């Protein structure tokens, strides 16, 4: 057993409530400043309106903070929840947790979902959600022991700095004789020294005999945890069966779980092979369709892309079951065994790397001009170990590389580093610098929005150019899809509540390849239904992947194949079987709508959440440079002549690009109008009184926020 000498700061014993139809019916609040541990009841109204997961997180966070709370104020809460279906073994993708907090990079509400066992273990220990507020200097660890029914706030000295070693050590220390009973939430030094820190959520891989992890990556949720002085939250729980959630209708639950599980097991090998190659299949596909972010989203393809896709990683992944929840047949959480880093503190030592997935490959690969699969694995490893979000790291480095190549920054600013695209050693060095908080990496770790300010103010870089090429919106770095040629996906990123992350909507293929939504109204409808349905997964403790990454064989014959309605119906049955509340597919959308609109108003309360905040850098809409225009000249010329009726004879590329820009910026504004109207928002992007009443979120405090913004009935 690992030798540690924890100092007990506070311990309480509690009586674990029986789980009832997916709920523990209480939440846990831990105040690190006051060393208070409080249990809060969950009301029926809270379940009816907020469902669980992100809904509960938001409700707790709303009450923890004020309109003036900043990310590093003690009252900012890190909220983590599962959901009523979370922890069901056998129903694919039922182990998700979701983290919500006020973000250091956006200043507004952030949510980030993640696999691993923590959320289910937390719930089965007796808590639908945990909120952590306050701060405490030193190495604090929270231990939630659902087996022995006690909660401890501990100070533990001598813990490893990085999350890779820390996860293993805490698993060993708290496990007793069953390491699979432990899940650890932790981060590393990168989270302390940057604003883009992630959280690692573990599960114990019994076959490989090691703690493994997935990441809640977006928006600096790990930075908030680190700022609180909290090194880790550990949950301990015992075995899990179909009965553990005490479903209302076990027979239906068993039937629908078996059907879904069997379908995925049978069809995944015939479709995307996610159980074998994870999401790496997307790399060559995105590249073929000119959609793989390359060189800071300038281009969508590169000849080297085949080196970093499924054809390579299928041989590098360690074979075996890789589900981040028990019995998940999607099982896409692959990893690389015995990898030996060439840099940093683990140089020359064998490590296990969880990943890479598509986002990391595109972010820390093609987007920074790196087409070497091993460098990507090493970037992946260190980002996780240091507690850094691979998406923000990749998109941030891509931005500084373009700034470097454009001469906006020089070696005088980078500490002598050559930051040309493709310089893999410089990219790795920046990751190490982010972890140590030293050098130019510390600047990059502030995120793109702050970098733009620093580069303009201190280095004299052109702010207008940086505004066009800095791929952030609302302060969050873009995830790794090209939106230039898909207006619907521009909305999917630009109007997303937390910023440009694809978990709300991924409409590129439906829009650009299949042309399913040619009109503004059709795009607006898609930008209503898909974000709402995808939001629902985060309310229930579920993963989105089983819904539409594996589809029924007859799906194409259904009226709306993109929605995969057979699976949506199964989800409605699943919800009813666990909670006892019969639901239709439309009911699922309505559940999400309430939480979605509440989050929008929460952002408004914090000073965001309006039309001006739904803006995009121009590169997300069209070609910024002459070279970009020329790379797709045929497409853009055709758009100007055929769609807009323009005579381009005699016009040079610069002039054509300017005209195209006017059209594209205008159409994005028109899209916003259409989406706002569909969602029941006013022209400033604020939910109307009628909308909040319809959704049952017309609480006095919500109405007060709307009133402050002159939204009347």
């Amino acid at each position, binding site marked *: 057993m690992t030798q540690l000498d924890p100092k007990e700061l506070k311990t309480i014993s509690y009586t674990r409530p029986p789980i009832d139809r997916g709920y523990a019916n209480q939440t846990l609040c831990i105040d690190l400043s006051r060393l208070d541990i409080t249990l809060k009841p969950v009301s029926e109204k809270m379940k009816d309106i907020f469902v669980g997961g992100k809904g509960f997180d938001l409700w707790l966070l709303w009450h923890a903070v004020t309109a003036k709370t900043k990310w590093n104020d003690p009252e900012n809460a890190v909220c983590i929840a599962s959901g009523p279906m979370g922890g069901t073994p056998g129903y694919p993708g039922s182990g998700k947790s979701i983290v919500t907090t006020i973000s250091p990079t956006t200043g507004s509400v952030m949510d980030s979902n993640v696999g691993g066992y923590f959320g289910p273990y937390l719930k089965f220990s007796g808590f639908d959600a945990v909120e952590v507020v306050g701060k405490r200097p030193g190495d604090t660890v929270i231990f939630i022991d659902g087996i022995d029914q006690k909660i401890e706030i501990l100070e533990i000295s001598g813990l490893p700095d990085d999350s890779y070693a820390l996860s293993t050590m805490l698993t060993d220390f708290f496990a007793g004789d069953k390491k699979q009973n432990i899940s650890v939430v932790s981060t590393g030094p990168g989270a302390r020294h940057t604003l883009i820190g992630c959280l690692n959520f573990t599960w114990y891989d019994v076959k490989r005999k090691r703690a493994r992890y997935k990441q809640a990556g977006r928006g600096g949720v790990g930075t908030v945890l680190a700022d609180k002085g909290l090194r880790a939250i550990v949950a301990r729980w015992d075995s899990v069966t179909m009965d553990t959630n005490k479903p209302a209708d076990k027979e239906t639950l068993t039937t629908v779980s078996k059907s879904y599980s069997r379908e995925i097991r049978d069809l995944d090998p*015939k*479709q*995307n092979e996610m159980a074998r190659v994870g*999401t790496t*299949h*997307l790399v*060559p*596909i995105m590249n*073929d*369709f*000119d959609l793989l972010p390359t060189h800071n989203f300038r281009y969508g393809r590169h000849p080297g892309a085949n080196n970093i896709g*499924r*054809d390579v990683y299928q041989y590098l992944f360690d074979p075996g079951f890789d589900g981040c929840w028990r019995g998940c047949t999607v099982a896409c959480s692959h990893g690389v065994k015995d990898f030996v880093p060439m840099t940093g503190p683990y140089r020359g030592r064998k490590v296990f790397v969880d990943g890479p*997935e*598509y*986002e990391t490959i595109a972010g820390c690969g093609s987007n920074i001009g790196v087409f070497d699969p091993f460098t990507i694995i090493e970037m992946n490893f260190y980002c996780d170990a240091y507690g850094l979000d691979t998406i923000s790291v990749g998109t941030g480095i891509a931005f500084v590389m373009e700034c470097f190549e454009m001469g906006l920054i020089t070696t005088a600013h980078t500490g002598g580093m050559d930051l040309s695209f493709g310089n893999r050693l410089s990219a790795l060095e920046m990751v190490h610098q982010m972890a140590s908080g030293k050098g130019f990496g510390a600047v990059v770790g502030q995120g793109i929005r702050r970098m733009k300010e620093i580069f303009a103010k201190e280095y004299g870089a052109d702010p207008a150019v940086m505004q066009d090429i800095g791929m952030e919106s609302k302060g969050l770095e873009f*995830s*790794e*899809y090209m939106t230039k040629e898909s207006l619907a996906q521009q909305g999917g990123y630009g109007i997303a509540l937390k910023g440009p992350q*694809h*978990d709300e909507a*991924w409409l*590129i*293929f439906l829009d650009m*390849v*299949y042309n399913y939504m040619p009109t503004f109204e059709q795009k607006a409808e898609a930008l209503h239904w898909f974000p709402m349905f995808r939001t629902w997964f985060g309310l229930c403790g579920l993963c989105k992947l089983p819904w*539409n*990454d594996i*589809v029924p*064989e007859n*799906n*194409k*014959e259904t009226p709306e*194949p*993109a929605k995969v309605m057979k699976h949506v119906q199964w989800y409605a049955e699943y919800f009813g079987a666990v909670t006892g509340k019969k639901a239709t597919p439309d009911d699922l959308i309505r559940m999400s709508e309430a939480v979605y609109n509440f989050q929008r108003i929460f952002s408004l309360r914090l000073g965001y959440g309006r039309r001006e905040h739904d803006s995009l850098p121009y590169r997300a809409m069209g070609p910024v440079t002459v070279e970009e225009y020329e790379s797709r000249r045929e497409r853009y010329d055709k758009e100007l002549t055929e769609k807009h009726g323009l005579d381009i004879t005699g016009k040079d590329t610069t002039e054509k690009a300017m005209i195209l820009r006017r059209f594209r910026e205008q159409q994005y504004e028109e899209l916003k109008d259409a989406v706002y109207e569909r969602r029941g928002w006013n022209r400033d992007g604020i939910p109307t009184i009628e909308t909040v009443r319809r959704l049952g979120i017309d609480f006095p405090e919500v109405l007060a926020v709307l009133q402050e913004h002159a939204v009347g009935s």
Partner: protein
Amino acid sequence: MIRVGDKQVPWKEGMTVSALLADMRDGHFYAVVRLNGKLVSRPYFNSTLIPDNAEVILIPMVAGG
């Protein structure tokens, strides 16, 4: 013959992925296929020849991350 999913389909000299899909009622639905284990995307359907005895798997939809 080639195998397309669970079905046997007669092979023709010079047969491309585009030609195969054009003969199918719902061929327009597919943007990606797996040909003998390798992914082929729509931009390359015209230029990709299907060899005899090939196995073609039609990928129903690309759903993103």
